[in-house]
């Protein structure tokens, strides 16, 4: 589980130069190959969508609505990301040369920790009910 309840951070070492990775992040056809179908253009302010299959029984219709927020060629790409439970989030890719390749960092930030279901789960799981159960068990055992 990630430490910050509002974000996901993952990174991956890729044995390729930043230029090649940048192309995979910004060419719509390549993006479609590894991520999702899209009408992306590498222009700040461009609004576009990623399209995938809807998830039955959830509020995710398979469409992620995005806007390009920041571009620093071969270094950083930031987009807004709204789809399903990710109501108002941002996704940032950062490329950092490492050895003969590149480390790609991905930050997906801005999830709503006040979602009632998530909040209740944290309250119950984090509310020490495990320790209360243990205390009761100890009490029973001590009888």
């Amino acid at each position, binding site marked *: *589980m*990630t430490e910050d*309840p509002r*974000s*996901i951070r*993952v990174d*991956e070492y*890729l*044995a*390729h130069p930043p230029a*090649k*990775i940048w192309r*995979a992040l910004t060419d719509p056809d*390549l993006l479609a*190959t*590894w*991520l999702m179908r899209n009408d992306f253009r590498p222009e700040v302010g461009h609004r576009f969508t990623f399209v995938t299959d809807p998830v039955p*029984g*959830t509020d995710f219709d398979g469409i992620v609505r995005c806007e390009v927020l920041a571009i620093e060629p071969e270094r950083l790409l930031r987009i807004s990301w709204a789809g399903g*439970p*990710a109501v108002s989030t941002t996704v940032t890719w950062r490329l950092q040369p490492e050895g003969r390749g590149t480390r*790609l960092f*991905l930050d*997906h930030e801005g*999830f709503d920790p006040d*979602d*009632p*279901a*998530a909040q*209740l*789960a*944290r*309250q*119950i*799981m*984090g*509310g020490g*009910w*495990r320790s*209360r159960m243990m205390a*009761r068990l100890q009490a029973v055992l001590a009888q």
Partner: protein
Amino acid sequence: MSTDVFGALASPVRREILSVLRSGPQPVHALAARFDMRRPSVSEHLRVLREAGLVSEQRDGRLRHYSLEAGPLQQVSDWLSPYERFWRAKLRNLRELLDTDDD
């Protein structure tokens, strides 16, 4: 993540029932009294919670006791883990694309 769990947690009454069960198992009539509800209504909420795996039922003669089940709540508590799995899978796709693309 089970959508039943989120559906079950969408109701304030059911969330309240779960909070009450934190302090230990309760029989239906005690829950009904506590929530000032008719017993069939409470039973209906408990049925939804049971189907979502959030509570379990123990029979003790004619009495039925309900207990909180931790598993699905842990899933909801780790609510971002499906997204983390999503991104890890996508980054694997990216790595494969780059590794097979020779130019």
